[in-house]
């Protein structure tokens, strides 16, 4: 018997999201605590679900229909892990979100809960169409949040996101339609077992459609064009959410398309190439940026490309690395976006060149350094293991040239982060207001996570040992 229903992970945020306007009628001040409390509750449930899933995959059947007809939530260890990451990141970001001042706050909190719910759903669901629905929920919440600042930048970013996002989801739907037309089923495991009944040409088209559709959310080149502007225009906490929640849900969906549904093995090199192209363009263009959030956004693209590369390499080691990287990137990039939010607030500008000495306050500087070093893949921070495992996995498959290209791109990454650190720690800057508790507590929390699991990564690796089943088409 299932002790905790994974569906709660979706239901709780949904319930509270629509409860918020009612609470808002009485008191606006409670809202933020309610949201944080909700996400905390969610995190606890995610933890419980995850512990459960470690033993055996959970199948939670919804609506009374039996699979393959009915909708099912299937939570493997990895899915539980990603859900936990998403909820944890969401929790910490929501602490930062407490300082949000701009009205309408109710809508902000509501949308962020919906975003969380959508991301959770994307990770947990075992039904292809359901996946699409949650993708759309996430997207709609994201569109709203992206334009939340209601300035030109925000709207422009949101517009780009809307256009690309809806084309992407159209592709997803096409893929679903094609699969359904051939197999008459939407359950992922069912599809996977009956895949060879499909006409190969239709299979290719379906795969391409799904790959591209989720690629938009997973920030794959060349579908990631919306990323910089949307991240740039959105409020800082929202950028952090995008990077650590919706992008992770997207890439996990992509991973499930690749491994669980299609179980590709012989054409994976194509994914590797897409991954390395993503890294390459992401990092190179990040170097050419002057604004901090844009730089972080492009860097995020690069990191997602690395994850994609790890998935594409497809050995146990590389995929373990990819999942580790999802974790580390969620933590580190959220940290950096929150730090960037503080910096923009303190300096009143987005230009990196005007942020002299912003990091000299240790409350900002130390988490900032830890985050950046983790992104750069330095041990003993969590960023290291993902990168190292992906690379070693790649080597064991003999992708020398691609890894050399990847390392060259990483060098560019080092260059622009070092450039930023140089400015941030330069002497002779102005005096900046010291950060509030809502800023430095999330920063320190993220930093502590980054260091603790960097020094003692064993629990994570134990979780990731389930990658083997995932690769062979399991949950």
């Amino acid at each position, binding site marked *: 018997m299932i002790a905790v229903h994974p569906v709660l992970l979706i239901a709780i945020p949904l319930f509270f999201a629509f409860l918020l306007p009612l609470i808002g009628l009485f008191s606006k001040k409670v809202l933020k605590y309610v949201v944080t409390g909700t996400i905390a509750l969610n995190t606890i449930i995610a933890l419980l679900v995850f512990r459960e899933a470690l033993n055996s995959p959970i199948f939670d059947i919804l609506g009374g229909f039996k699979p393959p*007809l009915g909708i099912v939530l299937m939570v493997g260890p990895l899915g539980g892990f990603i859900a936990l990451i998403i909820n944890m990141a969401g929790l910490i970001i929501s602490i930062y979100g407490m300082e949000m001042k701009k009205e309408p706050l109710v809508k902000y909190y509501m949308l962020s809960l919906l975003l969380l719910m959508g991301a959770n759903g994307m990770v947990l669901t075992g039904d292809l*169409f359901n996946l*699409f*629905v949650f993708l*759309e929920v996430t*997207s*709609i919440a994201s*569109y*709203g949040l992206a*334009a939340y600042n*209601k*300035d*030109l930048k*925000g*709207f*422009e970013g*949101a*517009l780009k996101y*809307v*256009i690309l996002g*809806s*084309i992407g*989801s*159209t592709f997803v*739907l*096409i893929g*679903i*339609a094609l699969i*359904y*037309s051939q197999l*008459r089923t*939407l359950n992922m495991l069912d599809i996977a077992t009956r895949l060879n009944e499909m006409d190969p040409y239709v299979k290719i088209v379906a795969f391409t459609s799904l790959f591209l559709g989720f690629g938009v959310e997973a920030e794959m080149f060349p579908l990631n064009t919306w990323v910089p502007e949307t991240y740039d225009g959105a409020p800082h906490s929202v950028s952090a959410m995008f990077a650590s929640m919706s992008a992770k849900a997207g890439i996990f969906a992509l991973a499930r398309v690749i491994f669980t549904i299609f179980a590709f093995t012989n054409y994976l090199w194509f994914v590797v190439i897409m991954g390395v192209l993503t890294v390459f363009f992401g990092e190179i263009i990040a170097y050419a940026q002057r604004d901090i959030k844009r730089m972080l956004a492009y860097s995020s693209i690069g990191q997602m490309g690395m994850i994609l590369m790890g998935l594409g390499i497809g050995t146990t080691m590389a995929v373990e690395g990819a999942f580790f990287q999802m974790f580390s990137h969620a933590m580190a990039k959220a940290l950096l976006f929150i730090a960037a939010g503080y910096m923009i607030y303190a300096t009143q500008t987005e230009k990196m060149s005007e942020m002299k000495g912003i990091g000299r306050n240790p409350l900002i500087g130390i988490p900032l350094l830890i985050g950046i070093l983790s992104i750069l893949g330095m041990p003993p921070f969590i960023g290291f293991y993902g990168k190292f495992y992906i690379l070693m996995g790649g080597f064991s498959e003999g992708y020398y040239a691609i890894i050399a290209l990847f390392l060259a791109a990483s060098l560019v990454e080092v260059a622009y982060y070092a450039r930023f650190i140089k400015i941030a720690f330069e002497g002779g800057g102005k005096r900046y207001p010291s950060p509030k508790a809502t800023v430095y507590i999330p920063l320190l929390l993220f930093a502590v996570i980054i260091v603790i699991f960097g020094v003692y990564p064993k629990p994570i690796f134990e979780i990731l040992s389930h990658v083997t089943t995932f690769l062979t088409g399991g949950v």
Partner: protein
Amino acid sequence: MIPYYYLASVALIVIGIYIVIAKKNLIKIIIGLDMMDTGVNLLLISIGYVKGGTAPIENGNYTLYVDPIPQALVLTAIVIGVSVMALALSIVIGLYKNTGSLELDEIRRERK
């Protein structure tokens, strides 16, 4: 043998993409998106179509009925499509308020 309604849906999608890429007016672009959506919905519906089948209403008198699942899917997809359209339009309104224009190049010029 590809039935013609597949062609129609493909045509709708292609036209939609063309509009999105080529037209400068934001409203038109959103109409393009909508057309794509419609095309896909049509595709879904047509997948479930069984020749001679009736509506899948469970009262026991029919042996031949169309696949009910795509219809359910399309219903959901339409709802989603509508809400996306609504959000997209609200974003367009926001852009219009900020720049006073609905033309994409003018908005971009405004930016600079």
